[in-house]
């Protein structure tokens, strides 16, 4: 899904540092919000751990759809762990992914930003749609599509702003090409939305308290 699949050296050192700094600021805010809670939510910590393992596992599996893509589960992370813990989860996933050679080390900052957008939008849509769409499956599905769409837009913006070293295309040409990638990615977003919807619907049925909802 929305993940910058470029190697180290694709972005100039300046933009590597810019995106790393932006990611560190957002993660810093997330840590501050978690620490500001008077009593740490034990369930959220455990859920965040499970989300990290599950998302890391699914992140590396290339599925032969649309030529080979992978799922992210980032909106699901947002829905289950919340935006603050979710931001930490995606940072860890991106570090671990780079450790096994999926994505460059220098792109961890940029990829974390993309994934934080997906987490925050997924979480926000799921909460905002509660009164309009009470059912878990469609609500989580729509939130996932919205989250991944915004993640793709963030990915395109980051690449267009940074530029890619060794590429002679104009920003307009890069934008057009990346828009096609994002459009292909969104086809997989529908599959991810369905999977997320089923998972959230099941959790909502057996343990609605984990979603912060009453039975």
């Amino acid at each position: 899904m929305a993940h910058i699949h470029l190697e180290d050296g694709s972005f100039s050192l300046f933009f590597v540092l810019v995106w790393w700094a932006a990611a560190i600021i957002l993660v810093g805010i997330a840590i501050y919000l978690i620490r500001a809670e008077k009593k740490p939510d034990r369930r959220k910590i455990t859920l965040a751990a499970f989300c990290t393992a599950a998302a890391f596992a699914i992140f590396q599996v290339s599925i032969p759809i649309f030529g080979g893509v992978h799922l992210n589960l980032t909106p699901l992370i947002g829905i289950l762990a919340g935006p603050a813990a979710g931001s930490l989860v995606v940072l860890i996933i991106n570090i671990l992914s780079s450790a096994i050679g999926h994505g460059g080390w220098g792109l961890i900052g940029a990829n974390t930003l993309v994934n934080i957008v997906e987490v925050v939008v997924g979480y926000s849509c799921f909460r905002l749609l509660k009164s309009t769409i009470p059912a878990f499956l469609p609500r989580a599905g729509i939130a996932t599509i919205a989250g991944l769409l915004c993640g793709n837009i963030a990915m395109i913006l980051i690449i267009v702003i940074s530029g890619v070293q060794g590429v002679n295309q104009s920003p307009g040409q890069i934008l057009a090409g990346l828009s096609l990638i994002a459009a292909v990615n969104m086809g997989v977003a529908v599959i991810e939305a369905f999977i997320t919807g089923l998972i959230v619907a099941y959790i909502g049925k057996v343990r609605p308290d984990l979603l912060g909802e009453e039975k």
Partner: protein
Amino acid sequence: MTEKKPGDTKGLVIFIGLGLLVIVISLVAYNATGDMGIEERFTHTLGLETGSTEADNNGWSGIAIEGSTWLYAVLLGGLVVACYLVFRHFRI
């Protein structure tokens, strides 16, 4: 049996409609770009030199692990152990 709420059908219709619309757009984009893996799609779009393709190690099923499979197993095993310890400690 769970009671159906008023917004449930509307939500499902919106979700299915949105999903179908996105899939149609995606198929059009897929046909325009051709059959290639996500990394190839990136390098091809940006006009970069392509290295090895995902098709090289996809096996018969087409499903493959990106990056180093050995490190993947080690890290995933570590995460599973960490989850177990957190679960035991906090008892959700």
